[in-house]
């Protein structure tokens, strides 16, 4: 894998040692080199990934998703909902209309949650950043556990029959069926939409990438080797729950968080603990919960957060054992 990014390392070396004239093998050189290399790599992978997913996404609209999942029960539909969640556009400001839209179409509550859990957790931006920093293996693990988390969490919420904790007005709203946008797009239009998303997302997140990579880079260059292994290694059973407890209320741009976590792994933070932390940052956030409060009673929000957090802790332990 490292080979295809070789040119980036070459650029990073040139810039660090020749353009900036920093003496090699110093802390400063290590940090600067790491920052340049990582930013380039993340932005390139991010653009490619957003383009691919946005293109695919022009075929999957929330209207279609609603029709596919309406009135369907069973584990299979939790999986479909979770998978659709990975490719669906998700901005926390759309979570309320989406939620009501799903419920109104007769999508069971549990299946709706499978979608809601996976949607922010597994997204093209996080996948690209993970791939760029932690490699393909960790990315695949993250994606698969994210999807399973959605399936399991949603299934459990469905099993507990929590419909009474949804605000009553949700069941009374009638969703109109005006078609939005043309049903058939040409390849050129789809490409245009995909390029537009690349521009939109990259222009919004680049600053977080640089901030995150810079913090990570400083840590990478200056923190003593193995420092985290000593204090938060696999033997410390409290490390995973603490990482999740810190991550849950944290609302941070995942693009900035991933490079920081990369540097923590570099200093010996186990991969399971790291992935658990990242998942807890992306899966639940305070602003999203405040928005969801409009449609869900606090009991359901509490259950939702607990189920997701506990599942993430479990996933973290599992990977610390397996990897």
């Amino acid at each position, binding site marked *: 894998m490292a080979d295809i990014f070789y040119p980036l390392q070459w650029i990073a070396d040139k810039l660090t040692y020749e353009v900036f004239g920093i003496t090699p093998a110093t802390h400063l050189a290590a940090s600067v080199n790491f920052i340049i290399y990582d930013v380039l790599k993340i932005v390139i992978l991010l653009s490619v990934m957003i383009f691919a997913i946005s293109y695919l996404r022009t075929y999957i609209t929330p209207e279609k998703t609603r029709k596919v999942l309406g009135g369907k029960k069973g584990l299979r539909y939790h999986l479909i909902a979770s998978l659709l969640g990975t490719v669906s556009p998700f901005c926390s400001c759309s979570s309320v*209309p989406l939620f009501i839209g799903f419920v109104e179409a007769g999508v069971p509550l549990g299946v709706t949650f499978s979608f809601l859990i996976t949607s922010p957790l597994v997204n093209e931006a996080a996948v690209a950043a993970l791939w760029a920093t932690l490699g393909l293996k960790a990315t695949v693990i993250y994606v698969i556990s994210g999807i399973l988390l959605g399936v399991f969490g949603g299934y459990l919420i469905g099993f507990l029959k929590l419909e009474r904790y949804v605000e009553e007005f949700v069941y009374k*709203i009638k969703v109109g*069926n005006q078609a939005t946008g043309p049903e058939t797009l040409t390849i050129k239009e789809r490409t245009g939409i995909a390029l537009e998303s690349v521009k939109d997302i990259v222009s919004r997140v680049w600053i977080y990438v640089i901030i995150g990579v810079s913090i990570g880079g400083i840590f990478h260059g200056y923190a003593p080797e193995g420092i985290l292994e000593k204090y938060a290694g696999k033997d410390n059973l409290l490390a995973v729950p603490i990482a999740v407890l810190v991550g849950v209320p944290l609302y941070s741009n995942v693009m900035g968080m991933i490079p920081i976590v990369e540097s923590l792994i570099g200093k010996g933070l186990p991969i399971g603990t790291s992935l658990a932390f990242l998942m807890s940052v992306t899966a639940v956030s305070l602003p999203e919960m405040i928005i969801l409060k409009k449609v869900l009673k606090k009991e359901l929000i509490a259950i939702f957060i607990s189920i997701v957090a506990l599942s993430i802790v479990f996933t973290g332990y599992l990977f610390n054992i397996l990897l």
Partner: protein
Amino acid sequence: MKIEILGTGCAKCKKTKEAIEKVLTETGKKAEVVKVEDIETILNYGVMVTPAVVVDGEVKLAGKVPDEKEIRKWIE
């Protein structure tokens, strides 16, 4: 002409409003621009991803900020 911008108040909704107002000033067209934040009204239009733009009761776009070309097409 009545242009409604549907959205629960996120950054993209503001951008949408600005883009539309900009095109309106540029073209000199007159239109009533309203922001709709009520969930029920938004869903009555069948819109689940915001921001969305409704021109004279017809949903033109949902889920993204429109570009100038699109806006010009609607208001002509």
